[in-house]
């Protein structure tokens, strides 16, 4: 389909390793969000991209987290030196705008497990 896709769907890594998570948004959507969902918690905002504007990185929990969005499309979330508390589902969403009625379309998420 033409929805948001994320890869990998599952990632198991060892503590201290780096991981890269990928998000392919819906074609033409200018806004892209990354969220983290831990067990029993709601969605925690991580970072927001809008067109060519500087991203809003205010939700990144530490400097081990970074994200890029190349060519206004695909985005990669990188976590360096992973820790066990990084284990969570990482969700990506895209939308065509940011008004109140704009729907965020979510991907299925990447489940990250840090051993």
């Amino acid at each position, binding site marked *: 389909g033409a929805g948001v896709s994320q890869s990998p769907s599952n990632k198991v890594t060892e503590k201290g390793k780096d991981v890269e998570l990928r998000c392919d948004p819906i074609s033409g959507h200018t806004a892209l969000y990354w969220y983290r969902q831990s067990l*029993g918690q709601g969605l925690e905002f991580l970072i927001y991209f809008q067109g060519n504007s500087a991203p809003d990185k205010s939700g990144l929990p530490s400097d081990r987290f970074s994200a890029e969005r190349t060519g206004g499309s695909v985005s990669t979330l990188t976590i360096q030196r992973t820790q066990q508390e990084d284990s969570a589902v990482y969700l990506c969403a895209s939308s065509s705008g940011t008004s109140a009625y704009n729907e965020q379309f979510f991907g299925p998420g990447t489940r990250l497990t840090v051993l």
Partner: protein
Amino acid sequence: TQLLEQSPQFLSIQEGENLTVYCNSSSVFSSLQWYRQEPGEGPVLLVTVVTGGEVKKLKRLTFQFGDARKDSSLHITAAQPGDTGLYLCAGRPRSNSGGSNYKLTFGKGTLLTVNP
């Protein structure tokens, strides 16, 4: 920090029963959305409410936005097993200029199980 408190956290009911879940905050939101999330999938938008006191109906689901735009409720009539899932409310805070903020603040969700 603007928080959204959802209650109950867990709800298990029999098919055909009615239920209401709540989303409360001390902060004012310019709009509020309800999402449903199934295992292994991302949340899917059910409704957006913008006006204080607004009521929207989606088949057996009724959504209400509080008059002060600080709270919302979701009522399901005659629940079906297919309604099972995690229901999340998400508010869009008002910006300092009085307009809308692009960030959504999510509640922790209500996990609903409807037993046949």
